[in-house]
């Protein structure tokens, strides 16, 4: 999987505000397939990590109660315009993706 993450990181004063949108079904495992009547297996992101200058700024542990195509926003200090921010996720099936984006 590639390009599932869209993110914007902007510095304002001494704080960087990050907004990210990830494409992912976030299936709870409770939903039934309308045609077969069987439950669609759980498939959801379990961990999201955001790194700046080699340091982890956010470690998010998610469950299936996070909405489909999850949105995430957070703020951290110590970033400068032009710095790089890396956002990555891993799901319960072992699939993953990551994105490196420039802070603006």
């Amino acid at each position, binding site marked *: 999987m590639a390009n599932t993450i869209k993110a914007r990181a902007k510095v304002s004063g001494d704080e960087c505000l990050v907004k990210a949108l990830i494409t992912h079904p976030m299936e709870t495992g409770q939903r039934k397939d309308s045609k077969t009547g069987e439950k669609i297996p759980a498939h959801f992101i379990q961990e999201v990590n955001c790194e700046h200058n080699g340091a982890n700024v956010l*470690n998010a542990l998610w469950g299936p109660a996070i909405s489909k195509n999850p949105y995430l926003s*957070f703020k951290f200090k110590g970033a400068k315009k032009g710095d790089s921010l890396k956002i990555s996720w891993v799901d319960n099936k072992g699939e993953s993706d990551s994105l490196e984006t420039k802070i603006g």
Partner: protein
Amino acid sequence: MSMKRRVFLKGSLAAGALAGVGLLMPQAVLAAWPKAAFDATSVDDALKGTYGMTDAADSSDINIKAPDIAENGAVVPVTVESSIAGAESITIMSASNNNPMAASFNLGKGTAAYVATRVKMAKTSDIVAVVKAGGKLYKAAKNVKVTIGGCGG
């Protein structure tokens, strides 16, 4: 992860019925994921699974921004902000979901006690936000009315 292992995992996961969340997780990758917390059916058990404690003091220094009425329980925007000094972690739960635990955010040293995301709510419920700071837990709750439940059950 090597391709072989990925393919094997994919194959073994796809085969057979997945009887529920978390039965066939690749343990090596997910050692840090608090399964007990996400499987918990009560707020207290979810806290125990996440932080190893359940005592949380009510705090007015935690602000939960969420709609009073959520039209679509599948996508309820929640923002939690806190002014408690030394906040290291924020956990969000939807108290009346079968499994209340929605997410836990571990904050880096320079990261603000501010997180925003969207959660699924099965029905009208309290959104509970717990902040861990200085070895203690603090909590706040906001009731959100849900007109159409969002867990698809």
